[in-house]
């Protein structure tokens, strides 16, 4: 095959099609079990703090990744925070254009300042700014199922 011949769609070559037929059920684990139960049942947000080195985590965890200490306690934080960075998405997963652009934010959490958290921002792209204060919007209690989608988005 000549080097100048350019094929950028491999399905134009002889090929064999197949799938990797796998499906998964992920357990949340000990740390996230507490975190999502608190959101689902009480609409509360749980963080944790390492008893040894003081590093704070949001969502709460059972161990400190920096000093490896066990973290058995959690504490409530308001869920509010400051936008540390954001991006505006124009494309869907399959490459098609979104009807309305989606703002995604990296949020530094109040009360757990070592942690940043990624979620959707309910704001038009032109109004988004780094440093802006945001708060979470939860689904009504009866619709919550212990999922990251129980938080609809963060809004100013």
């Amino acid at each position, binding site marked *: 095959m000549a080097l100048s011949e350019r094929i950028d769609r491999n399905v134009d070559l002889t090929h064999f099609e*197949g799938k990797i037929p*796998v499906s*998964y059920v992920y357990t949340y*684990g*000990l740390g996230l079990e507490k975190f999502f139960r608190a959101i689902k049942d009480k609409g509360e947000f749980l963080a944790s703090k390492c008893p040894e080195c003081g590093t704070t985590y949001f969502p709460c965890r059972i*161990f400190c990744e920096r000093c*490896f200490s066990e973290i058995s306690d959690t504490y409530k934080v308001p869920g509010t925070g400051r936008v540390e960075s954001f991006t505006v998405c124009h494309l869907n997963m399959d490459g098609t254009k979104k009807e309305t652009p989606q703002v995604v934010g990296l949020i530094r959490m109040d009360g757990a300042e070592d942690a940043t958290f990624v979620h959707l921002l309910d704001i038009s792209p032109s109004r988004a700014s780094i440093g802006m204060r945001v708060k979470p919007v939860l689904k009504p209690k009866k619709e919550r199922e212990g999922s990251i989608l129980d938080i609809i988005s963060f809004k100013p």
Partner: protein
Amino acid sequence: MGQRVAIIGAGMTKFVRRAQETGKELAWQAAKAALDSCGLTLKDIDCVSLGTAPDAFDGVHMKGEYLSDGSGGWRKPYIRHFVGGGTGVFAPIHGWFHVASGVFDTCLVVCSEKMSSCHPHPQGAFKTIFDHTTEQPLDPTLIWIFALEYNRYMQTYGISKRDIALVSVKNKKNAMDHPAAQLPMEITVDDVLNSELLAWPVNRLDISPASDGAAAIVLAGERTARRLTDKPVWIEGVGWNLDTAYWATRDLSYPRYVEKAARMAYEMAGIKEPKKEIEIAEPYDPFTYKELHHMEGLLLADRGEAPQLLVDGVTQRDGDRPMCPSGGALGVGNPISATGLMKVIEIFLQLRGEAGKRQVPGNPTCGLAQAWGDLMQVGTVIVLKNR
């Protein structure tokens, strides 16, 4: 060689079919226990070696990165490596490189696996280890490979299923004394032969289970090891070897790649007569016949002779050449990479005289752990001594 390397601490989780913990939480539980066992903290660790099996089992792409926090990799030189089922013995070999080279003085070696995420079972992931174009269209199950190798092994040496089934009886019984064991059982040869026939000659009780679990050890250079413990266990030889990936073109009756790996490790450890000098071993036993197959590859039995040693009781804990005193993958469970490291931990404890009810008599001084994997063509071997 830069310096001698010792294992100075170890820890593990229970092996279970389905754990609530995430893979990182399991890794942390085992790694933390290993550090605690030798009185170290993460600050004392210079580098981290992680072993974990295919990403498709946990359903986490780039498991090395995912497991880094639970493995203690935060802001440290950290490496993940992977040779399928052989990973659990390859991880400590990698750790040994780091310390033996003199570049680092301590290394935390962690192996973690969460196979239960693959739901309802990991067969879909196992299918993809076959060649996508020339084999997968035949709808193979992983068991095919083992059944084909098992059958060829029996045919070549005239071995009966009844003799091979004894491996399951021995290992599941040994596992009754292992506190992490998933399938400790007292069973008979007939129980194995009468268990569900999956792919002749493989019955259900010939196979190790799918498991969740983690294991970890701490390695240190000679001076540090002597400072931290009275009972260092030295890594005296390491070996690994790979055969052709065209698995159907190999001699399926004998694992030559295991022999090559073993010879490399024996030469490094100065072992000339493995049958005499290796007093205790943990060959990899994901299937019954594999323990025997591997004993032969490890030169711990003549070709086709391992079943007779088993029948004669030589490989029992109180026999002359105990094999899988832990209970092995068949009894303790098989969270792929963590299984190999569990075997290394068993030899470590046996050589320290700390194996509790599993302790083999006679104060063994030299032992071996071995794992095997990829598309059944990789052998990894580690030789340990307590002096």
